[in-house]
């Protein structure tokens, strides 16, 4: 049933292709009144067609409908069919039009069609991922058709929890529990969240049955307390929920031309004005590394990633200005003297030695240059 080539293990590991990423065929047997504007599989929801990592033509043999639930949606989008032309920056820029991106990277191990790559993009908000998917799926990109689908198998437990919780909040708002919610909002959502936070299912004894009214616990559910939102952000996330159907992209301005790649968003709208890319800084692509073979690309990327990791370990921020040229001086092994004052003086001596060492090196190299000059002068005079 899964599309050709996709592994059968239902997305256990990260590199596995999931069954639900297989493309659905166009449904041809539906009654006249159920026909949509364009041919698609039976799926009324954010996504219509799924393509697995196989040749496209064999996939159109499947005709089966799909039901969309919150379990299938995700802030993670899997983008297949990206031509292997070193166009990651362009791809991310395209997707950033629909909302702030928290994380992105290439999935080198993910099965891909020849000459294409697979990318994973994590949006800050599910709604933005939803819009991005809708707009970018089956879109032509550098001569190839992109296939965009949700990738909930990349979520952490906490992210799954938040996703389910957001759906709870949204339904509470959209249905008859609206009044309760608005009231809480006026009071200040942060306060109410923490106040009622210890009223979960798990401790039924600790709260009265009255508190168990759905309308109340949806708005002040304890899961909100440990969501990953920064405290300032939390407020906003509650406030923006009624605009669930709003198009994120319409609320955001995009400044793709600047090298720092930041999203300028008006306050109070869909996305907070945070740097667009928090995890990786895209190197400025001057077009030199394009048209490299895929394997070279992968190696290069791996090298860059390792380099990036190294800097993050050292604690250097990505916008460091100091550039180290040439080999570093050999480290003098540090010895613990078991005493603070002794250690301090040892460091002092060590640093002094280092300075002297540098001086020596400098003098040596200068003397070399001096000798060279003398020699050349001598040669000149001999001629």
């Amino acid at each position, binding site marked *: 049933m899964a599309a050709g080539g996709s592994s059968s293990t*239902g997305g256990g590991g990260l590199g596995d292709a999931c069954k639900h990423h297989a493309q659905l065929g166009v449904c041809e047997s539906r009654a006249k*009144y*159920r026909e949509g504007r364009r041919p698609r599989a039976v*799926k009324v929801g954010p996504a219509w067609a799924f393509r697995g990592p196989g040749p496209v033509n064999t996939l159109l043999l499947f005709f089966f409908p*799909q039901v969309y639930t*919150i379990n299938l949606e995700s802030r993670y989008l899997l983008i297949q069919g990206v031509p292997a032309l070193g166009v990651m920056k362009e791809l991310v820029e395209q997707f950033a039009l629909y909302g702030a991106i928290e994380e992105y990277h290439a999935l080198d191990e993910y099965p891909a069609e020849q000459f294409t790559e697979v990318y994973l993009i994590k949006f800050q908000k599910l709604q933005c991922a939803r819009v991005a998917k809708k707009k970018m799926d089956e879109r032509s990109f550098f001569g190839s058709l992109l296939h965009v689908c949700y990738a909930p198998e990349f979520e952490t437990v906490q992210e799954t929890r938040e996703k389910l919780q957001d759906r709870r909040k949204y339904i509470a708002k959209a249905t008859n*529990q609206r009044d309760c919610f608005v009231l809480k909002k006026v009071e200040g959502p942060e306060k109410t969240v923490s106040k009622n936070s210890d009223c979960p299912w798990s401790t039924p004894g600790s709260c009265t049955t009255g508190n*168990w009214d759905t309308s109340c616990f949806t708005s002040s559910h304890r899961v909100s307390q440990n969501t990953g939102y920064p405290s300032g952000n939390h407020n906003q996330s509650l406030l923006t929920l009624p605009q669930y159907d709003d198009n994120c992209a319409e609320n955001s301005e995009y400044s793709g031309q600047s090298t720092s790649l930041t999203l300028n968003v008006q306050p109070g709208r869909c996305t907070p004005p945070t740097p667009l890319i928090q995890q990786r800084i895209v190197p400025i692509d001057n077009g030199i590394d394009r048209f490299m073979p895929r394997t070279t690309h992968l190696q290069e990327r791996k090298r860059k990633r390792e380099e990036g990791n190294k800097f993050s370990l050292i604690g250097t921020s990505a916008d460091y200005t100091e550039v180290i040229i040439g080999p570093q001086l050999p480290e003098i092994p540090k010895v613990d003297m078991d005493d603070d004052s002794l250690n301090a003086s040892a460091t002092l001596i060590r640093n002094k030695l280092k300075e002297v060492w540098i001086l020596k090196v400098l003098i040596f190299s200068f003397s070399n240059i001096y000798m060279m000059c003398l020699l050349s002068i001598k040669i000149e005079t001999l001629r």
Partner: protein
Amino acid sequence: MELGRLEYLQALVTEFQVTDSPEAKEQVLANLANFAYDPKNYEYLRQLQVLDLFLDTLTEDNETLVEFAIGGLCNLCLDKINKDYILEANGVEPIINCLSSSNEETVMSAVTTLMYLTTPQSRQQTTALPVVECMLRFSLSASRRLSNLATVFLEDYCTPLQVEEARNLSKHTAVGIPLPKD
């Protein structure tokens, strides 16, 4: 869409009831279940008794129909009126039975539906010992989606005591509900 929303949904329900084609039945049910995602449709779906339609379909032999029906329930069960209706109609039992399906999507929808149906009154049913035991096994599943979901269920909807009890029970019995195939 030429027809109004209610008329359109009515046409779907009618087609589901009268058609003999299993394929058409699946398509229509998928349509209805997807409509159940949007709260705007809840009132119409209640009028047309689509909740009963979903609940009745849970006991069908056709796995695909069951998957779509539980998907539909998962989509609409957060609404308080819908939730009360499902609980009143003894919907928890057939939903728990979906946990033993070999279809992963069915199981996922069933777990989420059970979470969303949990209230102080229904708690005893939705987090019954066999359910907790089932979640313990799902939390070890190779499928990350399923294991995440089961972990959330255990951490947020069950007491540590319940989990401990289920853990002890599963130690003694080797047989249990099998994991979904994919």
